[in-house]
């Protein structure tokens, strides 16, 4: 029983981070109708930004997060404004291909700049843990989990209760009507993509604290973010976090009780089942 609880706790801690990864992807997808295959690469870039800020500048990883988010916000804003904006109205396959190409380029440049070595962000307090009953809660993953929840909650508030947030949601629902009310779609879309990239950057920094960074990590994180974004519902931040938790727990249980080689198959199996079962609903809501 204690083992089971421990596995679930581990799954929940990873799941919060998964949710944060998917948050940015879901936001961009829901508002801009772009399935951003560069998302995993943006997570990777965020991770390396925090890593180098810690190693070179001695900045605490949690203090470096906002800096990384700011940097990735800028990158995302520019990408949407000058590259993706010019194919905004083309068939979906085209945006898939362009974001995919950008992912390849980003991965290659990262490999050149950061080398293919595995890196971990390792602050002095990394090994500390808390024992509650028979269950061990490692401190850094727990803090990363807390930061993920905080960001998701912040996004939820921002989307629901600020002028810009309302403009973003309005553009998603009815672009024509939003324009009539004075929303500038180019600015709002670039802002949305930038926010998505900033969230990816935060997820990357936290990921570097609990797992290893390498230039290719985006390859597996993009489909994972996709699965979670669908599980949770695209533009509902709290739903996405719940989706992340579900996947985290499912993976932890699979790894512990079935076989670790099946972990990735599980997330995809879940996705296939879910999509096939919910097709009619998805088509109606699309």
């Amino acid at each position, binding site marked *: 029983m204690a083992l089971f609880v421990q596995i679930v706790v581990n799954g929940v801690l990873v799941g919060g981070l998964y949710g944060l990864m998917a948050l940015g992807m879901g936001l961009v*997808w829901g508002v801009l109708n772009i*399935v951003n295959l560069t998302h995993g690469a943006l997570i990777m870039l965020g991770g390396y930004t925090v890593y180098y800020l810690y190693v070179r500048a001695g900045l605490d990883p949690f203090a470096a997060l906002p800096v990384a988010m700011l940097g990735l916000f800028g990158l995302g804003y520019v990408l949407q404004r000058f*590259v993706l*904006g*010019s*194919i*905004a*109205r*083309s068939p*979906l*396959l*085209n945006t*898939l*291909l*362009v974001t*995919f*190409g*950008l*992912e*390849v*380029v980003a991965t*290659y*440049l990262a*490999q*050149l700049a950061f080398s293919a070595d595995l890196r971990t962000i390792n602050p002095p307090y990394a090994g500390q843990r808390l024992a509650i009953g028979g269950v061990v809660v490692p401190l850094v993953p727990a803090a990363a989990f807390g930061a993920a929840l905080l960001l998701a909650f912040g996004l939820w508030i921002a989307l629901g209760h600020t002028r810009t947030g309302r403009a973003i949601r309005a553009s998603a629902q009815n672009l024509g009507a939003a324009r009539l009310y004075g929303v500038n*779609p*180019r600015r709002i*879309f670039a802002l949305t993509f930038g926010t998505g990239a900033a969230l990816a950057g935060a997820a990357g920094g936290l990921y570097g604290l609990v797992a290893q960074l390498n230039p290719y990590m985006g*390859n597996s994180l993009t*489909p994972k973010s*996709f*699965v979670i974004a*669908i599980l949770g519902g695209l533009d509902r931040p709290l739903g996405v976090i719940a989706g992340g938790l579900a996947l985290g727990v499912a993976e932890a249980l699979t790894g512990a009780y079935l*076989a670790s*080689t*099946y972990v*990735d*198959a599980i997330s*995809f*199996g879940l*996705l*296939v089942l879910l*999509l*096939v079962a919910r*097709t009619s609903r*998805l*088509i109606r809501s699309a």
Partner: protein
Amino acid sequence: MTLRWLAAALACAALAAVPLIAPSAFRQFGTEALLLASLAQAWNILGGYAGYPSFGNSAFYGLGTYGTAVMMARFHQPFAVGLACGASLAVACACAVGVPILRLRGPYFAIVTLGLSAMLAAIVRNLAIAGRNIGLILPLTRKDTLFYELALGLLVAATATVALLAQSRFGAGLVAIRENEEAAAVMGVATTRYKVAALSLAALITAIAGGIHAYWITFVDPASAFDGSLNVKMVIMAVFGGPGTVLGPVVGALLLSGISEVLASTISTMASLFYGVVIVVAVLFMPKGLWDAGRELRRRGLPYFGENLRRYRL
């Protein structure tokens, strides 16, 4: 029309004669490029004509690879039996998964096909008969020329199939599905049957390419049989050349293979960057592919690129 067929026959004959004069390194590059072109052409049937972009055709490639390898290495059957077994496995798989997954559209379909490939790879990794993670070793052969001709034969057969398909009722039905699926269904196109048939045809060609590659390399393992970068290459090649055209994917594949081979031999790490840059630039400036660009450039000149860049702007 007759002139075109004559030109095609001449081109095939010229390609078939290449191994007689070219060095062996070129034969190997040629085999690789011809197999990739067959994969791009197979993707074109469902992705180009019917508008269903699959990112997981490597699932069928892997099944063809493993079908052939298991038959030859475990049951000591001849190559032809192995190839037939791999191809039927892939077609059976396409028919079985086709009905549920072809109900999905756009990104949902793309990601589920990607997942299918990952799941099959995970299953193969746990199968004792398929050699688990280690893979299988096939009987050794040293007939580069034979494999070159086999790959060329497959590409010619695939292209001829697509050429016939493009003029047939079946092809028209697929295009109708791409342009407007609801309208196609209302006009009496049996959309599900058409899509499953297209997927099965693509699976057949892809699996045969996998089988040929397996026997040529004489070694298979899960990582190379279900190689994700293969999906990427076939999609990029088909889209670069011209999706939904007969010769576009072939031209795109051969051209990109050639350039990437030259890059790989001069600046080794540039090859992977190359595919990324090509696809971004190609989609921005000639979203309908090389084939369309070639035709339109003659008519409208260089402004064609600018028009494309502005056409889909927000």
